[in-house]
């Protein structure tokens, strides 16, 4: 069809912020999530990915409205289950860039089991968790990251359950890229997203993103403009200097775990990175060796042979 050829030949325009912007975000004014969206646009623009290969996914929550604000393929899934959804897309379509956004409740509570297993299986994708220490969309219930003493509608006298430590949990679960950032630190956030993209494997970023409505000021202790300290992880440069010995080796799991132990607000940057093979690569290897052994038969020949054995 001649029409089709012209379609395929259509020239590709530069990917601009305008091209990837969709609905106006419905977040409360001042919500930390705006900055995350802005950083995402910036990275996509900077990296000039093919527009049609960007896939933006999310579960349910304020933060999870994310895909609606991006013009690109995307899906708004159910609460807590976006990790396996994203895993399916990543495994079947290595040509796509799979980005997943969600909240602390979505990721660490209802979706906690999926997070652990996505990490263990080391599925190739970028998972950005907008952690506001509260349930935003459902209007201020205790979240799995709410600090002890936080007064919510479900803990009117203050939260009593030990909160999840996202960094520890992710390192333990086997995530191969684990980083932490802050929504007021846009440049740092962009750096972290880019490094997560460049990492092959299950790359998770926890971003402290303030819910101005239900937990205002939660992250001021890490915001220099509010009198806090945004302390960065000093990563090893491998320059054989004596200072370097004191720096953090991102491949050192125990060292990463120690950094994760630091009291709130802790430190920011890449805690852990490791190049364990992805499930994507391992499945592909299995497929390739199997098909090689079989001599790359057609689907029909394969199934016919199976049936011949059942006669």
């Amino acid at each position, binding site marked *: 069809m001649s029409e089709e050829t012209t*379609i395929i030949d259509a020239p590709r325009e530069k990917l601009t912020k305008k091209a990837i912007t969709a609905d106006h975000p419905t977040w409360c004014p001042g919500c930390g999530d705006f900055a995350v969206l802005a950083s995402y646009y910036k990275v996509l623009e900077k990296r000039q990915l093919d527009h049609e290969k960007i896939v933006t996914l999310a579960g349910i929550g304020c933060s999870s409205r994310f895909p609606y604000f991006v*013009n690109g393929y995307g*899906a708004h899934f159910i609460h807590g289950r976006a990790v396996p959804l994203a895993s399916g897309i990543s495994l079947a379509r290595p040509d796509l860039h799979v980005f997943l956004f969600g909240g602390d409740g979505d990721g660490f509570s209802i979706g906690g089991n999926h997070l652990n297993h996505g990490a263990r299986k080391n599925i190739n994708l970028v998972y950005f968790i907008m952690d506001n220490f509260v349930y935003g969309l459902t209007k201020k219930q205790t979240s799995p990251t709410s600090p002890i003493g936080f007064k919510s509608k479900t803990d009117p006298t203050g939260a009593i359950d030990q909160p999840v430590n996202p960094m520890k949990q992710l390192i333990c679960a086997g995530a191969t890229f684990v980083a932490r950032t802050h929504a007021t630190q846009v440049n740092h956030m962009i750096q972290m997203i880019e490094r997560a993209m460049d990492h092959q494997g299950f790359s998770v970023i926890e971003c402290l993103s303030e819910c101005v409505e239900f937990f205002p000021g939660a992250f001021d202790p890490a915001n220099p403009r509010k009198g806090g300290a945004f302390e960065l992880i000093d990563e090893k440069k491998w320059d054989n200097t004596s200072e370097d010995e004191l720096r953090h080796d991102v491949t050192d799991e125990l060292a990463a775990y120690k950094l994760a132990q630091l009291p709130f607000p802790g430190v920011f940057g890449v805690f852990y990175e490791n190049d364990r093979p992805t499930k994507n690569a391992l499945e592909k290897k299995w497929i390739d060796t199997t098909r090689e052994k079989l001599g790359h038969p057609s689907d029909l020949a394969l199934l016919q042979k199976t049936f011949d054995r059942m006669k």
Partner: protein
Amino acid sequence: MKDTTTTPETDAPNSAEDPTAPRGSLTATAPSATAASQSDRADLRPESINDAVIRLAGDSQDGIQSAGAFLARLAGRSDHDVMTYMTIPATISGGPSIFQVRMGTGEVLSAGDEADFLVAFYQHSYQDHISFLKDGGVLLYDSDNVQPDLDDKRFVYVGVPITGLTIEALGGTAKDKGKNIFILGLISKIFHLDVEKLTTLIKEKFAGKNASIANTAIMAFTAGYAYPVGNVLTKQYKFETVVPKEGDRAQITMDGNQALAYGLIAAGVRYGAGYPITPWSSVMEILRSELPKYGGIFVQAEDELGAVSLALGFSFSGYLAVTGSAGPGISLKTEAIGWASMSEMPLIIINVQRGGPSTGLPTNVEQSDLFQAIFGGHGDSPRVVLAASTVEDCFYIAIEAARIARKYSTPVFILSDTSLATRIEAFDEPELKDLMIDPKPDLTPRAAGFKPYAVDQITQHVPPGTRMLDGKYPLVSGLEHDEMGHPTGSPKLHMAMTAKRRNKLRQLAEEIPMPEIYGDQEGNVLLVGWGSTYGPIHDAVKLAREHGEKAGALHLRHLHPLPNGLEKIFARFKRIVVVEMNDQGIYGFGQLATILRARFCEPKIESATKTDGLTFRVKEILERVFEGRSFAARKIPREGLPIVHADPSSENVKSLKEVVPQGVG
């Protein structure tokens, strides 16, 4: 067609042949007092038969399933129709277990109510199953373990020291492992089975394993075959040979779960995810090892929601995917299935049903998840529900499910059950080259104006990676949405989109072919069924018609939506009885009966249900449907013997012990 071929050794006149024995049934004279003194009678001319039910009863670790499977495969290779039935114990390892093979040269629909031939490994096997042996039937028992009541003159007793002879034949460390193959040898002798084909099957089965395993198996087989069984059994049988007609397709032999898995592969399904649960697991096990050969992936997920979500991810990425489970797992997947309905994502969901609710009867059969399949979940969430009726149909229903899922961009349930999952049937080899589908997603760029959720069209998603030339990319959403997938709270849009999702199923209903009626096209009773009850229902109708009843059977594969026009069929019968394996509920009707009554407002629809966890026996159906008619009640109950589950309504159960399956089929 009676087989009169004689081999050189069988020229002697057949003194044992009983001319009064009814054709097609298996009978033998009771061993006379002189039987033991007679020489090996294996050289006698065998009696020709065309249908036999052989029940192997032992413990699961005895390998009776594999012995039964060899028989089934052999029957398939010899162009016989074959149907098997097995029970699996709920215990982790061991426990009573049976495998029943029915072989015939006609159309074999059900596994058989009664056995012609019972092989008992243990005393409990004998005690639990002797009531399934028909009068005049043969009890072949391991005389090392079983002491039958020889005074009961209804049966022919053939005691063989199976355990001892197997140990003797194999010696050493094998102990009595191999009894199953020894018995296979014995049966081959008695039934004049094709030894060459059988040994080939055995060798094929163990090909690639340690050569000594295959040798041991052959040794056990040879020992069983060489046993002078003719000393005690004065009769032998030979199946009428089936001469394949020209154009006849080869027979393939497999179980229902295999048929589902290979049907999916033929249908171009290359991705899926699941979580293990009986009786679904083998579907995922097959797909896990088969799909990589086709370039695909099956993921063992962390849980049921993970599995359905992965499958939805595969479908979203452009490859129609499958997930599956049994009832408990489907319950967990429900929220995501609702999303599939709302986002109109194609997906195949297999439910290999077992007894419920909760963990229920994990290894027994039940058809009690029909409501769950049709209605499970919140909101108005249309989906398609299909049910496979036979093992062969498992293959074709998978293809139908994939076709519907793609065309209507919808989740499609396939209902199977324990009985289909575990039984082996032989069926005509499918014409693969006409059926195979190339599953590649279409990534050609789309012209301006594409809307996934156009109100006046059936949704067709575009896989990511496809350029949209107007630069506008669609979203897929579980929130109510507009035509581009963006959220909306508009009542008008919710009404329009709800109608859109429902109307595509009405459109599907229009294209579903009207199912054929088996038997009388009009008359007194129409038996309506769905799923694995196909065989016994059809056998029941056959029998009833032989006794002068005007009866027909209607079997539904498309359960939601139902095909249009069933009311025209219903109008032609005085009674409509829906036969299904679930509870009659508080209003007295089974699940399909309830739906048919709601759909057609037809008060003459009756319900025949049961919940004993076992497949319907033909006479159970006859008793229920033709109550009081002499042919229905004939020979049952058999005097002096406990009838298990003769009365399906638990209210009439005299003692609870009576209904406990105790590994009984």
